[in-house]
């Protein structure tokens, strides 16, 4: 019997943003590429992300995760990548070539690859406490699969553990699905995720309990309540009635295939645990590369750049590009990565409109973006060039109000939903405030809605003047409400389920 094992130049395990970009870049250099993923749909984490990604516009930030996934998939297909989906790589035998063993529904399939890129992402951490095995305790990834992919509501009132970006974003996704979030609990003194993501929850009135921890859950058949303790106070824990406890307590790079091959691992706490030594070129094993969360838990923009880089390294390894070409191509990527990887420091800000806002002329963009995060869709989507971030991408946006036309694109595209438009006419009685809104219930012109402030405080009923929902806004509406001048500068959104 002849050897029916397929042969490729580059095998990529994992079809997340890192794997897809690795494929695009290696195919571009002329390699025969196969991208393998255990899921039915390519995209990795992105498939489950119904929110608009923060990050650099160049890396599709401002779009929803699932849209980015299909965009990258089509790009990779067009570049010539072959896809082997619904296949899990469970073993790698031999090093030259690498022989991959893949579990499929019909049995094992093999694939020989001259070079191997591991873009296997990361797996979620769990947290053990009394009652953690009760039905109703689940990880953020699990709840996302249920809610965002399978459209199943696992509970009605959730306690989120972890105020990193995942905890914050998933909480917001739950709100969009009509699930209430009792609180977000984190033992650290500050919110670890981005300020803008925390702000979305604050607007919805979700308490952010930093400096708190979960002591356990109570319930017989399933979760009925959770015990939460303030770590700075001697007081007794409080019991919060919830039917679901969701864990978003960090991710660990998936490096099992690296270990299996005997590659070196080093421990880096900031990257989520053990990661392959040597960065994209896994040291000790020629032809083996790693990218994305598998080489250190980070973000999609970083995963894409690392994927690109791994593709270039593999192409060089295979002799498809010269050393000079490799250097040229990688220089830009290294610069971008250095920019994206700058540490993000926590900020504690509470917003109220500033004196300059009150003194402003007719129209004003309010940007409540106090933290230096790598994100720039507002700048890239402003048709008049009125918003400037520049480089590094972590700069905070600056607005030239004289150039602003009031189109509202920044309001619609900001992944943090942190842009607002305030307009007033000097003599007028009413001012207008526009904010981004997505999900249910739908709003219409003429509706009376309950306006809320940045901290979720209910400000009063106001009438909707305009609802702008362009196709390009991808299911976001820019809602304009009219309110008195004492109210309008403070409005940051509307309470869900209280319109009509």
């Amino acid at each position, binding site marked *: 019997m002849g050897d029916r094992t397929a042969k490729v130049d580059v095998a990529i395990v994992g079809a997340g943003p890192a794997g897809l970009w690795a494929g695009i870049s290696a195919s571009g250099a002329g390699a025969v590429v196969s991208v393998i993923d255990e899921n039915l749909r390519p995209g990795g984490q992105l498939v489950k992300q119904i929110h608009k990604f923060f990050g650099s516009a160049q890396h599709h930030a401002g779009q929803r995760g699932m849209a980015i996934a299909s965009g990258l998939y089509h790009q990779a297909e067009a570049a010539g990548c072959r896809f082997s989906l619904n296949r899990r790589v469970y073993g790698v035998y031999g090093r030259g070539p690498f022989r991959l063993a893949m579990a499929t529904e019909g049995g094992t399939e093999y694939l020989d690859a001259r070079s191997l890129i591991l873009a296997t992402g990361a797996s979620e951490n769990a947290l053990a406490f009394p009652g953690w095995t009760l039905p109703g305790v689940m990880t953020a990834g699990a709840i996302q699969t249920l809610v965002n992919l399978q459209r199943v509501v696992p509970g009605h009132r959730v306690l989120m553990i972890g105020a990193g970006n995942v905890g914050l974003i998933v909480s917001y996704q739950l709100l969009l699905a009509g699930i209430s979030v009792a609180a977000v609990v984190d033992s650290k003194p500050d919110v670890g995720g981005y300020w803008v993501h925390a702000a979305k929850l604050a607007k919805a009135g979700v308490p952010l309990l930093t400096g708190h921890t979960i002591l356990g859950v109570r319930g017989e058949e399933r979760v009925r309540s959770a015990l939460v303790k303030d770590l700075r106070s001697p007081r007794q824990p409080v019991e919060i009635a919830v039917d679901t406890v969701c864990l978003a307590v960090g991710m660990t790079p998936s490096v099992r295939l690296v270990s299996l091959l005997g590659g070196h691992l080093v421990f880096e706490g900031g990257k989520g645990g053990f990661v392959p030594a040597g960065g994209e070129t896994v040291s000790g094993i020629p032809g083996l590369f790693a990218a994305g969360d598998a080489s250190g838990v980070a973000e999609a923009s970083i995963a894409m750049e690392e994927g690109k880089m791994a593709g270039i390294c593999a192409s060089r390894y295979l002799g498809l590009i010269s050393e000079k070409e490799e250097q040229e191509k990688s220089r830009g990527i290294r610069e971008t990565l250095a920019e994206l990887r700058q540490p993000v420091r926590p900020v504690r800000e509470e917003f109220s409109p500033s004196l300059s806002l009150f*003194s402003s002329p007719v129209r004003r963009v309010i940007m409540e973006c106090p933290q230096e995060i790598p994100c720039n869709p507002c700048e890239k989507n402003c048709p008049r060039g009125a918003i400037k971030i520049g480089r590094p991408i972590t700069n905070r946006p600056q607005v030239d109000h004289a150039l602003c036309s009031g189109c509202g694109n920044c309001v619609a595209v900001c992944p943090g939903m942190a842009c607002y438009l305030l307009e007033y006419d*000097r003599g007028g009685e009413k001012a207008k405030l526009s904010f981004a809104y997505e999900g249910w219930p739908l709003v219409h012109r003429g509706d009376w809605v309950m306006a809320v402030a940045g901290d979720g405080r209910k400000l009063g009923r106001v009438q909707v003047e305009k609802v702008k929902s362009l196709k390009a806004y991808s299911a976001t509406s820019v809602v304009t409400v009219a309110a008195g001048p*004492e109210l309008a500068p403070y409005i940051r959104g509307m309470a869900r389920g209280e319109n009509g």
Partner: protein
Amino acid sequence: MKETWDVVVVGAGMVGLAVAYELSRRNLRVALLDKGGLGQGASAANCGLVLASDAEPGLSRDLTLEGFRLLSTLSARLGYDFEFEQKTFLQALISETELAEAEEMLNGPLSKPLHFRLLTPEESRRYEPYLDTKDALAVFHSLQAVVNPLQLLFAYYRAARRQGVTWFPKTEVRGFSDYGNAQVAVQTERGEFKARKVIVAAGAWSAKLLSPLPVELPMAFIQGEAMVTEALPSLLSCCTGLFTSDRIDLEKALGADLLAGKQSGLEETSCLELDVRQMQGGNLLIGQKTDYNSAYRDTVSWNGMGLMAGQVLRWFPTLRAVRVLRTWVSPVAFTPDHQPLLGPLPHFENIFLATGFKSTIVLTPIVAELAADWACDANMPYDLGEFRPARFGEE
């Protein structure tokens, strides 16, 4: 209510509270009524300036100086610190007219007690380093005082309650009837209050309250808007503003219209009398835009907020990013001749009116004493003739 009060005080603004306190010191049985709670009117909405510099010559000035003296020791008497503090006031002069007016004030009788001086812009920065004086011809300097208006109210309230004043919040007065026999019946939403005497300190609402009585009171009201910012580290040490010649002219015209009984041509006009200062807690208190539109309203105007914030930034560009926590508006009583209405009503000699003060805080302690003198039939140290409410009907 069956009992008879010695005095019913209507209105729990600073005037009403101070009056109630003074009355109780004289062992009178006092009921204090307000349609809302404490300081629902202008008294919790003001900037806390103890302003003496704009007092008109005559009785007004005498009372102002006496009030100023009383206020400086009032904290101790009430046993509560309401943040009374002497302050340097700086007023930017931006036109030759203002400069001339200011020079005239330098020779006036208040010049010495209030330390009037004219500073060059550079000199003024020694007092207030963040002041940007590029638009100023000169800066008018005076030494006056400030209080925390909310704490002042509370100080009076506490002292009055301690001395036995009975407090009736949410008790709107709807009218009065004369019982003869030296008694007044005060009709309220909670029934009737019998009193020997009534003191009306209902601020801008006084005219409305007294409208059923056959008394001619050509009162109007103006609306003041203000804002407060977040607390900042110690930044400003003075109370800084603009010289207020506009306002004086506008108010003269408004007064003349009122007296002539015509619809004011000043509807929709407004002016800015800027003052910015930092309170002890660190918050900046910014006032005051005044407008002469006589409809009650409960929301601020964009125009007012824009003017105020714009002017603050003109003089203190540093403050651009400082956040505004709250904005508000409140009506303030206004009289055609800019003099208060202080004295018993014609034909209703047991109802005493105390409102319409131009600079209320500085006058409050002395007004309270005078009202209490009246209630006790004591001799008053001043002749209040100039301020008698009946003066308008007589011409």
